[in-house]
């Protein structure tokens, strides 16, 4: 078995003829030609201001997310699996959130330890008993998926709060059509253009009943937010005003926006503000970004908010470990997409396995301050491992463990030519009356040789993701 799964050449069955064709076409470009096109693509991204913001002392610096012009390809069969798996997962997450904010059956049945949910910082008691429209909490979800050595798709993380990156999916496609039309021509690729319409439709579906032509808005923290480009992009794609907190006002438990014709009612808000900033009456009192009284208006059913407040509890690392059980519990189905094999150390079996295999595992604390206290077994010294065993035994409930995943690779244009680089995939699901998944998703690529870090803030880039039709 190869050490890494290659996204183009290692397939689980016979090589798809279209993939073969794309591969052959790619071979026909020499590296200099690819570089010329990459340069023009990056210049264009910069000119278009398709940037994210890196904060520094005085000036905010705009950077483009590096764009690799060699696409990542998913066959129709691969995509079908991912899509079904994402829909299943989002459905289970929504049922889970409904339950924990209502009857809490899953806690009573002992499927998930009570304290993991109720003691979670992202659990919002304010949400108890609130009936959100259509039972949907997570209207936009991003599922981080990787492939292991065997090419299996595994979920690494759920992003159920305000996942970013969908704008790059669509802009990458536009860029691809401009700089590599000869690679795309004649190949059936599922379009990504619908996203804005689907999102708008979902926002209309959740609007308060009886409003014939609901006013949808996108609520952004403003131009200095690092994801502002995405906010603009989505507002434009939906054809709705991009508002900031100061544009909205709540009177008589109804939400209005300040327009040149006076206050105009608002019915449905796609918010890109974290819970904490949404409403100073309920959350951080000092927040200037939110809208006073917004949560009250929402609770009374006068306005819809997507994603709902309190969804963070579902994308928490601690809950993530239970997601396969959550799927079985609510849907009575086996997970279509598995988690990365995760052991829960608060459970005796999990703890024993973790202690016995520590040198092969990544052990992560599940507490709120993720990042600290993590150990990567294969990179740790014997002393570090011994020390960690003591910590682990002292507080097993604080840890989960996972094997180190050798992420799949995709050919990527690098300094030394076309080389293999690790990639992940974040498909985006939009849920209103039903769930729709944007074909493909954001493929992030670690541009540094050997690096598994695909994060944009740490030198990651992105690729256009092609789903073959």
């Amino acid at each position, binding site marked *: 078995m190869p050490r890494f799964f290659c996204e183009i050449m290692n397939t689980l069955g016979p090589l798809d003829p279209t993939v073969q064709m794309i591969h052959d076409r790619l071979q026909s470009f020499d590296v200099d030609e690819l570089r010329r096109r990459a340069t023009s693509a990056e210049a264009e991204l*910069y*000119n*278009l*201001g398709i940037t994210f913001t890196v904060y520094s002392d005085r000036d905010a610096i705009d950077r483009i997310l590096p764009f690799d012009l060699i696409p990542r390809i998913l066959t129709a069969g691969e995509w079908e699996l991912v899509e079904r798996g994402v829909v299943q997962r989002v459905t289970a997450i929504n049922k889970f959130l409904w339950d924990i904010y209502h009857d809490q059956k899953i806690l009573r049945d002992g499927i998930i330890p009570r304290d993991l949910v109720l003691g979670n910082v992202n659990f919002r008691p304010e949400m108890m008993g609130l009936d959100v429209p259509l039972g949907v909490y997570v209207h936009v979800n991003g599922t981080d998926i990787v492939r292991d050595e065997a090419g299996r798709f595994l979920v690494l993380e759920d992003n159920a709060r305000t996942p970013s990156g969908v704008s790059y999916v669509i802009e990458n496609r536009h860029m691809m059509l401009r700089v590599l039309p000869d690679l795309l021509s004649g190949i059936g690729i599922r379009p990504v253009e619908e996203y804005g319409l689907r999102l708008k439709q979902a926002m209309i579906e959740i609007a308060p009943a009886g409003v014939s*032509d609901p*006013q949808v808005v996108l609520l952004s*923290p*403003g*131009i*200095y*937010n690092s994801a*502002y480009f995405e906010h*603009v992009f989505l*507002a*434009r794609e939906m054809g709705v*005003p*991009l*508002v*900031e907190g*100061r*544009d909205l*006002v709540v*009177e*008589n438990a*109804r939400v*209005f*926006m*300040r*327009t*040149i*014709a*006076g*206050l*105009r*009612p608002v019915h449905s808000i796609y918010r890109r503000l974290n819970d904490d900033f949404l409403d100073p009456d309920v959350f951080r009192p000092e927040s*200037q970004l939110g809208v006073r009284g917004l949560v009250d208006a929402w609770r009374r059913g006068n306005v819809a908010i997507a994603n709902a407040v309190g969804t963070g509890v579902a994308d928490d690392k601690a809950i993530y470990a239970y997601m396969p059980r959550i799927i079985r519990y609510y849907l009575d189905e086996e997970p279509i997409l598995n988690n990365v094999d995760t052991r829960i150390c608060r459970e005796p079996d999990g703890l024993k396995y973790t202690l016995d295999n520590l040198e092969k595992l990544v052990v992560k604390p599940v507490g709120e301050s993720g990042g600290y206290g993590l150990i990567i077994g294969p990179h740790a010294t014997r002393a570090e491992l011994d020390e960690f065993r003591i910590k682990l035994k002292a507080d097993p409930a604080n840890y989960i463990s996972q094997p180190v995943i050798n992420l799949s690779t995709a050919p990527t244009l690098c300094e030394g030519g076309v080389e293999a680089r690790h990639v992940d995939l974040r498909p985006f699901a939009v849920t209103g009356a039903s769930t729709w998944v944007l074909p493909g998703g954001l493929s992030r690529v670690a541009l540094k040789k050997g690096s598994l870090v695909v994060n944009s803030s740490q030198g990651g880039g992105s690729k256009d993701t092609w789903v073959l039709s």
Partner: protein
Amino acid sequence: MRTQALLSRYAESTVWLARYMERIENLARILDVTESFTRTSLVENGWRSVIQINADEERYYSTRTEADVRGVTEFYVLDRDNPNSIASIIDVARENARTLRPLISTEMWTHINVFHNWVRRLNSNDIRSSQLSALCARLKQECQTHYGITEGTFYRDQGWYFYSIGKFLERGDQTTRLVDIKYHTLLPREAGVGSQVDISQWSAVLRSAAAYHAYRRVMPSSLSPASVAGFLLLNNAFPRSLVLTLRQVYWAVGQLRTDYGLRRGGAALERMDELRAALTDQTIEQIILRGLHEFLDWVQVQLRLIQNDIADAFWTIEPPLHASEFGTQTLGTMTQSLGTMTQSLGTMRQTMETAGPASSRQSQN
């Protein structure tokens, strides 16, 4: 199709985007003409007048002692500590454009973005005397490209009228500044009137307003300071004349009221009526006789008040809600929200006087 009412903040940013782009072009014009002015004549204080036009004496002399070509161009092109420099103005113009991304066309945004990146890379080499004229030409051209792209791609709804309001208010204001300062700089002594130097300088003034050829068509045989001033202020057909820019602002406010049924903006129209009457009821000779400088001062105050009237009408004061939407509102909440509004009105006014909304970063912390 339902027309969405424009967000007040968008209206405000649109006005300022237009004003800033217009301001950059005017600055480039003034630097350009001053450069050719001082090169071809022995006029003293040529560069100081640029500082006077922009009422920047205090700021300029706080860090510099001499108003020479080097200092003034550095101050007005590169100095990012000077909020009136092209480098600073393009920053806030771009911030307004960023705010307006959902409203403006991709072409408008891309051009401003590229223009901004270019200005940011300018350095002291680019403002050497030998380069200055070419630099000004490029700046003017970029602004005109912006107007062209805007004309060709900006959707003609409410935003378009606010854009017009901002552009023409700024243009009218800049024309009055140009006339004011040049008239007094160039008309110091009785003896100078009609002399050769004088004429070439008045031609330069006309050129700085892109008015030379238009003026020549109207006045083929004479070139007097009074007729130049009269042309720039009162001509009905010249695109940068005060009278014409006022007509455009008036028209734009009127369109907002008629096409979109906005009842506000009446105060701005009334004030413009008065101002237009003051301009058309007297000749330039009468104006000069009564005191051109005082008159232009008054005009500039009026223009500022018109901007305030428009701000009050469309973004700083909250119009009352429709009764149908809001039948049961209590007096208590009304008073409370009025309190907040007055407060924000104060902050907005403050920023408006100096630079406009995008220059204030405090709301993002």
